[in-house]
């Protein structure tokens, strides 16, 4: 993704800023500006705690371009404590120690870049919660 594209996502990537529907109270991440439950406009920012648990996971040995340096790495679907689910890499944990239901928390890490003149992209990864 290009520089502008990454820049636009900084609030989500650095602080897990999503949205709250003012009409029905649904908490939304990733933000979409329209409530998925009641279709009302939902632009009120809501900062998620970064606490959640692993819904499912898998380990990638054949990464896409730009992620080679991290392989093998484990990706997960994470159910945030507040309700929404997101997709992220896990970090600070061996892949064979991961399990469904494992409590995790958000940390900010390098996602990709830094080589061949590519800007470094930072964003959220998740680690076992007890490490905090």
């Amino acid at each position, binding site marked *: 993704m290009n520089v502008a594209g990454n820049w636009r996502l900084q609030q989500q990537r650095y602080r897990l800023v999503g949205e709250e529907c003012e009409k029905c109270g649904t908490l939304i991440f990733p933000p979409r500006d329209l409530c998925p439950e009641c279709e009302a406009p939902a632009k009120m920012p809501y900062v998620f705690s970064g606490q959640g648990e692993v819904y*499912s996971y898998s380990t*990638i040995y054949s990464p896409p371009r730009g992620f080679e340096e991290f392989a093998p790495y484990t990706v997960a679907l994470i159910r945030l404590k507040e309700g929404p689910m997101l997709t992220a890499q896990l970090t600070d944990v061996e892949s064979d120690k991961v399990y469904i239901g494992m409590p995790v928390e958000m940390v900010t890490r390098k996602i990709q870049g830094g080589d061949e003149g590519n800007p470094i992209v930072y964003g959220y990864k998740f680690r076992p919660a007890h490490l905090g």
Partner: protein
Amino acid sequence: MRDVAIIGIGQTEVGEHWETSLRHLALRALQGAMQDAGVTQVDAIYVGNMLSGELAGQEHVGALVADFAGLRGVEAFKVEAACGSGAAALRMGYMAVASGLVNLVAVVGVEKMTDALGPDTTSALALAADGEYEAAQGVTFVALNAMLMRRYMYEYGYSHQDFAPFAVNAHRNGVNNPYAMFRFPITPERFATAPMICDPINLLDSSPICDGAAAVVLAPAEAARALSTKPVRIAASAVGTDTLAIHDRRDPLVLDGAILSTRRAYEQAGVGPQDIDLFELHDAFSIMAVLSLEAAGFAERGRGLRLALEGEIGISGRIPVSTMGGLKARGHPVGATGVYQVVEVVQQLRGEAGANQVPDARLGMAQNIGGSGATVITHILERME
């Protein structure tokens, strides 16, 4: 609105076509279908393709195919809906003929994947996922399916080996399909020991990277009998959509897009799952086959795998699937797959499926899935008596 029929089919072998370019693959399938239909001219060409720009360095393939097929001047464009592109192109062709705006339409699905290097193909396939919130995290398309499979096993208590019947069935049927990429049978033991590629998905849970093209010719049903000895009517053509990202779904283990798509198709055709004689489903990964069977109403939630374990997905089972090898054994040239599925259903309904013939097949369903379930396109085809 008028009824639409398929009057011609064509396909290339699926595999690694080092000597054949995208345009010539498309051309071979198109010529095959037009020859089969006995026509030398069509009014429009719709080309289903997902990754020509990324992997073959070529967009704008509609006009390209028209030109190289000797049909320069006809209406032509590409239709894209990730791995659902082939059926999306058929849907366009169906609407064009049904509306009365166009009479003879050629639909071509084509994909050329093997020219690119592995990591580039992996990146390209991930374009079907949400770019900002899935692919940007380094998740691959295989990994998305692996997470669904793991969760399915967790929620319903299945083992990985329980998925073996899908790969075994697909490979058994691929043996008798001269166009299939893999024409060898596998045993459950071989499935158990296949190399892991993205835990719990192993090599035999996964469809291959490959090249291929398939095509059909459409005509108004009332004219089809004069043009073809074995016309097949499109009894339903329906699309359902869902979120691109799995994490945005109501329930990741339920393909809402497939439920919508099949429900609309059943309604249009006036039939239900009990009337379908064979189902070409989107078995890009074993887990997708399971979730499709459930979404299409052949099994309750969590019971799709039981159908396979009880031997009901074979040629003589209650609902035969992947009857010519499926995505697993015939192969999955992504943007072409939806057209291959329909070509194979036509073969079955014409009684031309050889050793894999489903006895007296009258009604066949094909379902093509884009991404991890965001676009689901269902066609129900009926033998014209």
